[in-house]
């Protein structure tokens, strides 16, 4: 990553994204999701997708929104991202539909579908004039395309099979760090998994291939043949 890209995006959460940067990143994600045709995204899928995007960002040498996640029974959920999402809804850039209050074993919760408002699409396209976000857009588009065929099983598979989320011995309420205070190349096991697909193969996989392979890998974990 270039120095200017680091300044523009903030390098990892260590240097903390400003609100505007996080919202620009989110709008870039919605722009990518719109391009690939996966909108609207339900709240749970959206947070799971953002989590996987954070985990695999080193594969494209770019910054994710956060390098940690709090393990919980509802799966990955980022409160700060939700604040930003709500603000984007209020500003008329993201459209929310099917809002509902729900209740499960963990208590009262909510659900909603999110898509991109035409105004949000315009802003998202403007964000792409910043070269660093163009790279983020490429990454999130590819990840969205990898997610699309497996959207139905994605949430369950991330919780059960993601190499960071399913570390043996980790329990709900534990903070999982895959790059905030640790070296991603050593402790981001999802990223490390993407680097192992090439092992003993005559031709290397491209970084694009690695994203698709990782999502398909999630479906194969714990399955033989």
């Amino acid at each position: 990553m270039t120095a200017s890209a680091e300044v523009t995006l903030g390098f990892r959460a260590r240097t903390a994204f400003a609100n505007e940067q996080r919202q620009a990143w989110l709008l870039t994600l919605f722009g990518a999701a719109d391009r690939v045709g996966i909108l609207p995204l339900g709240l749970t899928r959206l947070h799971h997708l953002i989590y996987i995007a954070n985990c695999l960002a080193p594969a494209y040498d770019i910054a994710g929104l956060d390098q940690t996640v709090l393990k919980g029974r509802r799966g990955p959920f980022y409160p700060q991202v939700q604040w930003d999402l709500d603000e984007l809804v209020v500003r008329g850039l993201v459209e929310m539909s099917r809002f509902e209050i729900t209740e499960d074993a963990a208590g009262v919760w909510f659900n909603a579908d999110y898509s991109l408002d035409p105004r949000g699409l315009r802003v998202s396209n403007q964000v792409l004039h910043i070269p660093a976000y163009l790279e983020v857009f490429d990454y999130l588009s590819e990840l969205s395309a990898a997610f699309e065929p497996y959207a139905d099983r994605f949430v369950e598979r991330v919780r059960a099979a993601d190499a960071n989320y399913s570390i043996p011995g980790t329990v709900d309420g534990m903070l999982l760090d895959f790059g905030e205070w640790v070296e991603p190349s050593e402790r981001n096991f999802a990223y490390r998994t993407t680097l192992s697909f090439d092992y003993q193969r005559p031709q290397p996989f491209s970084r694009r291939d690695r994203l698709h392979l990782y999502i398909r890998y999630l479906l194969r974990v714990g399955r033989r043949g």
Partner: protein
Amino acid sequence: MVSSPIDPALVGGGSDAAAIELTAEAEASSLPSVPATSEIAPLDPALDLLVRWFRANADALSPLTLVFPRAPRAVLEHLQGVRHRAFKPDAHHLLRAGRVFVCSRSLGEAVENDADFSSASDVFTGLEALGLAQEPTIIVIPAQGSAYWYPSGMSTPDEHRTLPLSVAGTAVVSESVIDSFLDLHYNQHLKTPMAGTKVWEDASLYVPVLQAEKAVQYDLWIAAKTAFAASHRVRLEDPTPAGRTDVLITNRPDVSEARGAALLELKVLRSMHHHVDPRRAKAFPESENRAGIEKGLSQAHSYGNEQGCDLTFLCLFDMRKDNSDEIVAPFRPNALSLGVLLRRYFLFASSDAARASDTARVLSEPGAAESTPGRGKSGRGKRRSGKKG
């Protein structure tokens, strides 16, 4: 960041070494060949499906139509018809001539409309009624051996691209196979402004379209995909540490008879810059064309090495005013040293110019006057095409 492969057994965390190995083995042949951001991305899975369908249904009388709505979730949810899941290439037997299938981008989901359409105009009327006439569409006309891709829907017919489905496939990629493929593609799609690929903004003024190289690249990828996809993976803009390859043809590990891997690096030479008002277009310096060839040679060499290709081609699509090989000559020794096969294809600005050039070449061949049609044909070979090898 780590760059070398990690032993799956040493990844750690919650990883599953067996699943890693199985995924790499089982999925390598079905990975997308085109970046998700590309406008032709929906063609990637669709072409695999349609080539297989066409081989079994070449004599079908009615068209087959696939529609890719830009917001598929919203459309598929409300559409009436037969629902298909995991609509993959090996599910081609589910496709039926006369039917319209509305699909998600990856073909993971599709709805088959239960009406039958006997012609392309019927399909257009049907799509209009369904509110889908402006959605990206592929329509296969079996009798023509082709499919047609409408990226802005059938309501914008001028933007279509032809997808040749009847190209004979081959499992072996060699220099002569690639040369024949490139010659055929050049003659059918690039040689003249009427040939198919839209590369000219105004051919009479030698002004190219905005992204002429991309237009050439997309159509070449489509042709290569239909010709080699049965045995090879044909990738577009594959990112490598050194940059992005243009078109990469590598043998599929699951096809035992597949042989050979080729990299096609593409450059467009031109006399004029693009301008929306062609009369105001500025001249393109010849020095930039030369710089482009030099860069192309270096890219082709490094990408080809990185991907372990047996063959590396640098294809120059020449849109300049003069059909002269002089610009290429100084680079031939370096190309030879680097193992890069340098090819130049001249894009004539008019059909008349192409015909005049062909005639002049035939007449200038030694013994042209005495040659029989048969001998003349074999002797003309590549020179007829306007290609300078």
